[in-house]
């Protein structure tokens, strides 16, 4: 009988056993995870990084997916790139990663090797329409942790209108580093404080990686060590040392204040060296009518060091309860032609042929596709997923080279500092 004294105990036991029964229900479901129906759809969480432009496009894609899959609802969420990884780390620690996530190659090993991501070869995702050389970049030790949505390549962006207003001829991209530096200097000199040549390109890890490849050096060895020497890094940071502090490069003071917008997107620089899929973002940020792309400089005319990288990957959490729904959403995002129509080249050039062929590329999007076609003969293999902790190294590369621009360190000091951090990190994760 329930009296005042044992009333609470009774309620507590009742609640606990109900929860236990519910837990049994979860445990007995199939390996596909829980599935929903049109009447009671399951909800999966999806998260991505990017600007407002990407958010609008992604929401459109999600609506389309929900219209086609009445049994699944997708709850979308986004942040900027830097905050994105701190959030994921916190979630992973608490065991609560979102079901499906947009992912970057830099962090694939960190989470894949540590069993946080679902092996996508165990679920149904169609990869027939993918270039066979591209898929390994989402694989580690025989497991598929990520499916590339699209590819991107390194390029030099420029704003033709800005160049014309200064009376500077448009570049054709057949330049070496000396010529490129001279070009930046000319823009800076004629820009008269209102327009700078560009952002310091030696602060970008992937451009350094391109330069290493131009010199036939691999950034990382097979066994996860550094493939280049401190002297290589010094040589790299010395490439434009006479440009630092001149109008050829935007000062770090200005660039810091524009963040999180890029100087190029803010119309303060005439060029930017970065991935070719930033086109849509730059157009939206800058409001420019047209932006153009040319290949990166190289001192070896036959070796531009370029490669196609998966610009982003789709991954699922290893702990997701809705494997089937997650797989269907990923399949949709990478293969569906209509998704291609929504994103155009803003994620990069679609990696799946089905999606690529189903997308019409016009105007600036066509420029991106044409650019990747134009460099086809220079392309080398996509890089493998970089070493564990690479995201940290990439961030410290940027930070230390910004210290270089602030004049806080010398090139030698900067190289020492980065190597110390890198060696420490490699030792730490060994």
């Amino acid at each position, binding site marked *: 009988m329930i009296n005042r004294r044992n009333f609470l105990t009774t309620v507590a036991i009742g609640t606990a056993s109900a929860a236990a029964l519910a837990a049994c229900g979860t445990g007995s479901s199939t390996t596909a995870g829980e599935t929903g129906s049109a009447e009671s759809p399951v909800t999966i969480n999806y998260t991505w990084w990017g600007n407002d432009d990407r958010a609008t496009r992604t929401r459109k894609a999600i609506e389309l997916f929900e219209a086609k899959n009445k049994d699944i609802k997708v709850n979308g969420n986004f942040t900027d790139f830097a905050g994105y990884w701190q959030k994921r780390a916190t979630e992973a620690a608490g065991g609560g990663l979102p079901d499906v996530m947009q992912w970057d190659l830099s962090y694939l090993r960190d989470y894949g090797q540590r069993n946080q991501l679902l092996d996508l070869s165990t679920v149904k995702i169609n990869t027939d329409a993918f270039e066979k050389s591209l898929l390994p970049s989402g694989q580690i030790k025989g497991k598929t942790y990520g499916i590339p949505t699209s590819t991107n390549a390194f390029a030099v962006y420029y704003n033709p209108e800005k160049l014309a207003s200064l009376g500077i001829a448009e570049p054709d991209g057949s330049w070496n580093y000396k010529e490129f530096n001279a070009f930046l200097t000319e823009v800076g000199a004629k820009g008269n404080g209102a327009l700078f040549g560009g952002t310091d390109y030696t602060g970008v890890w992937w451009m350094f990686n391109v330069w290493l490849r131009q010199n036939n050096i691999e950034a990382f060895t097979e066994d996860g060590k550094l493939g280049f020497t401190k002297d290589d890094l010094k040589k790299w940071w010395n490439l434009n040392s006479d440009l630092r502090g001149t109008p050829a490069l935007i000062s770090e003071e200005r660039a810091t204040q524009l*963040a999180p917008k890029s100087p190029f997107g803010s119309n303060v620089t005439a060029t930017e060296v970065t991935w070719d899929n930033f086109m849509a973002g730059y157009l939206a940020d800058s409001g420019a009518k047209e932006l153009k792309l040319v290949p990166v400089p190289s001192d070896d005319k036959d070796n531009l060091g370029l490669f196609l990288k998966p610009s982003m990957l789709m991954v699922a959490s290893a702990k997701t309860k809705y494997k089937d729904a997650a797989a269907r959403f990923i399949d949709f995002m990478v293969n569906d032609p209509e998704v291609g129509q929504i994103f155009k080249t803003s994620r990069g050039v679609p990696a799946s042929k089905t999606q690529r062929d189903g997308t019409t590329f016009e105007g600036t999007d066509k420029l991106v596709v044409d650019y990747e076609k134009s460099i086809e003969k220079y392309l080398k293999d996509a890089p493998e997923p970089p070493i564990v902790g690479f995201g940290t190294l990439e961030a410290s590369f940027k930070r230390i080279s910004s210290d270089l621009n602030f004049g806080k360190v010398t090139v030698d000091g900067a190289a020492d500092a980065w190597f110390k951090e890198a060696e420490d990190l490699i030792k730490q994760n060994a």
Partner: protein
Amino acid sequence: MTQSPTLSRRSASPSAPAPRKSKRSGADARAGYTFLLPWLLGFIALTVGPMVSSLYLSFTNYNLFEPPKWIGLDNYTTLFQDERFLQSVGVTTSYVVFGTPLKLAAALAIAMLLNSARKGQGFYRSAFYAPSLIGASVSIAIVWKAMFGDSGPVDQGLSFFGINLGGWVGNPDMTIPMMILLTVWQFGAPMVIFLAGLKQIPADLYEAASMDGAGPIRKFLNITWPMLSPVVFFNLLMETIHAFQIFNSAYIISNGEGGPAGSTLFYTLYLYLRGFSDFRMGYASAMAWLLLIVVGIITLVIFKTSKSWVHYSGDAK
């Protein structure tokens, strides 16, 4: 709600009657602990537990995903060879050393202005207190960033007077002054406590001093300061500890990176980056414990020195 720290030690003097002992005391204690239980459980589960585990983690190499590996004192010894760590110590120290006294001085000055009986004092008190309610919020940090940016109001205002500093946000030499201004602006909490303290100083002391021909400075040094010293002591302690914990505004203003050139790399921000960007939770835990120890020592030092400058009204001197 806020009661100023007592100016008198009389209440704690040994002459107070000892609590009466009765048979009911056992039952009272039980009832007391029962009422305390919800808080006690929370305290043990949410504060003591995590603290103990972070103490353990500080002796390990722990990356969140794999089980922690015991490495002894390695984290603590590598800290002192880590240039960024030393930088974060420097940044935080300069913030605490310059920011706290300035904030307290501002709070005391405003409190003295508000202590006089004038019309509308209630309104002014609320108005001056308001910044400390919203000051730690995300939106204020964003406003601060915009105000001190290139061609922001501060830059334009200073340029009007011929001072061309440019934006403070991107200038490594100006970010600490900017952060200090942000904390000084939030003087509300210590101000209210100062105000309460000022109200407890007997007016006849000032009257007597005036009769003897003491000027305002004399009155401040010989009456206000000694009478207020327990409150100054309390505020100094709280604000120093508080200043060491700065995080939110630095995180937002520097986009979570501690830039430009590491000039806003506060201790807690570096701790966070080490833990959640670099996955080095053991290292971050060691930093947290070191901070706790250092803040503890500083508190102790302030307590020790207080004997020479804090006067309680019940004391002989």
